[in-house]
């Protein structure tokens, strides 16, 4: 059971929630850039446990299904077409064997997630299925998905898809996707991670080296409207704005960094470390993006979205994290309810 890739899109990789406990070997957790949307996509096809999804940036791939499959697209706002007809997003869609899905460009946001019932069936490497591009492992042979590739699905994807779709439409709220023979439902899951404001407000706490920066640099971090540079990737988002200067040059012995670290190399252009970041670094760290705001920042499309940073304390960072966790859990619970109580 596979999905054939007709066109690759941009940076299409197999992702899950990553690997934990290996940072002492310089293996970062990695995983989905926007784990919230990844989890919702999974829940929309009834995947109870974390399964691998297909992640893509800005422009999605074109895919051919050789079997019936229950799929869902979530994350950035795409306007996909199924056999030429508009396909609804953010809800389960039962596509028919022979269908072609063209995901197209993101109208808003950066990273999209395509989930399939049963998950993408790539081997577990070092405890995860995520593609880790810098190390060349995980996912489909450690690489981005290219045209001609076959994305492996669960052996029982057809039976699983039919059974789950039957459960999800037991209330009768079903609809045809015009022209394609696919079926879907009338409800949808909200996007939790697309910017609610312009500019997008991203909260940070002071970094361990904040005091090493000039006052003007610390003020600029929160006063300016920043943009994500086009040469950003899954390792880091480079920020376009004023240069941030140190009071005096300072050598810092390489130390562990983490998701959301805002480091400032000698040139003064800040970089926010994203999912596939290096585990250690020797650049001064002016700030750390709070974990609750990382999925939103991940969805800030290079060039398009403006970002404003707001300095907060650890208490607010902690509260924001548990608040997001609760909102995600509530939504996942509602989606599980749509699929009924059975487990498979």
């Amino acid at each position: 059971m596979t999905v054939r890739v007709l066109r690759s899109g941009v940076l299409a990789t197999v992702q899950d929630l990553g690997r934990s406990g290996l940072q002492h070997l310089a293996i970062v957790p990695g995983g989905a850039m926007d784990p919230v949307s990844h989890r919702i996509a999974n829940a929309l096809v009834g995947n109870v446990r974390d399964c691998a999804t297909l992640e893509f940036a800005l422009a999605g791939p074109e895919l051919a299904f050789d079997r019936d499959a229950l799929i869902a697209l979530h994350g950035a706002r795409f306007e996909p077409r199924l056999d030429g007809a508009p396909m609804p997003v953010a809800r389960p869609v039962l596509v028919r064997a022979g269908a072609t899905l063209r995901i197209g460009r993101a109208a808003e946001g950066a990273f999209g997630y395509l989930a399939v019932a049963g998950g993408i069936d790539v081997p577990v490497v070092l405890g995860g299925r995520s593609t880790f591009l810098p190390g060349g492992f995980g996912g489909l042979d450690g690489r981005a998905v290219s045209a001609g590739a076959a994305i492996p699905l669960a052996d029982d994807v057809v039976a699983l898809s039919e059974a789950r779709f039957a459960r999800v439409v037991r209330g009768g709220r079903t609809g045809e996707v015009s022209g394609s023979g696919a079926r879907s439902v009338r409800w949808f899951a909200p996007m939790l991670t697309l910017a609610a404001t312009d500019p997008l407000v991203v909260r940070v706490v002071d970094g361990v080296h904040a005091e090493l920066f000039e006052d003007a640099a610390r003020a600029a971090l929160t006063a300016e409207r920043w943009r994500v540079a086009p040469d950003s990737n899954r390792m880091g988002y480079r920020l376009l704005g004023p240069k941030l200067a140190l009071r005096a040059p300072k050598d810092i012995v390489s130390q562990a960094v983490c998701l959301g670290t805002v480091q400032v190399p000698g040139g003064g252009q800040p970089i926010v470390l994203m999912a596939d970041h290096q585990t250690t670094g020797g650049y001064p760290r002016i700030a750390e993006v709070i974990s609750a705001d990382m999925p939103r920042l991940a969805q800030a499309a290079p060039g398009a979205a403006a970002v404003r940073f707001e300095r907060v304390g650890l208490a607010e960072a902690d509260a924001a994290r548990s608040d997001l966790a609760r909102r995600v859990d509530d939504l996942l619970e509602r989606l599980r309810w749509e699929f009924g109580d059975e487990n498979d």
Partner: protein
Amino acid sequence: MLELAEETDLAANAAARRVAAEVRTAGLEGITDVVAAIVTVTVHFTAKDAAQASARREAVGHLLLAALARAGEAGDEPERAPVAIPVCYDPAFAPDLDEVAAATGLSPDEVVRLHVGSPNRVLMIGFVPGHAYVGGLDAKLASVPRRASPRARLEAGSVAIANGQTSVYPFATPGGWNIIGRTPLRLFDPLRDPASLLQAGDPVRFEPISAREFQRLAAEHGGR
């Protein structure tokens, strides 16, 4: 994060590794990663809500300080057999060896002899999976800085020096250090256990090999 020193310091590095080992052993709930870098220990942990985060932050802090107090009392690190890393220092594998020799006023052969003879030990695994930062470089080589402009790509297995350390690159990555040789070993293999050939704290012995030996070993280790 616990900072044990402001500069690279072998004793502080040994203490950092002891502290990390003790924190790992303590098995405090919620800790996901304990990373000993060169002179720092960083503890990553999760929490389900704000109250738990605050309690765990405090518990981790206490644990780090208690471990630090005990690390100071411990004696020298126990001796153990070094991990042998065969390195070919031939010009084809050592694009910066002549420059290093010129900068230090040594002959290329002397640079190699000093590199091999240094009391090398892995200070940390960082940057990318399995990438070893090796300390203990002979004082005559320690003054060599990073290259003015980094290479966009260097070969996997490159052995390079800068700022008193040796970097052993497991992957073809960008890099700014001075390449003086290359090892045919596979330094990181996600399907092997352990995936990383080197671990923080490992003593290392670089062993000079010929180009022919390099090819033989490279073939044996499955190439790259």
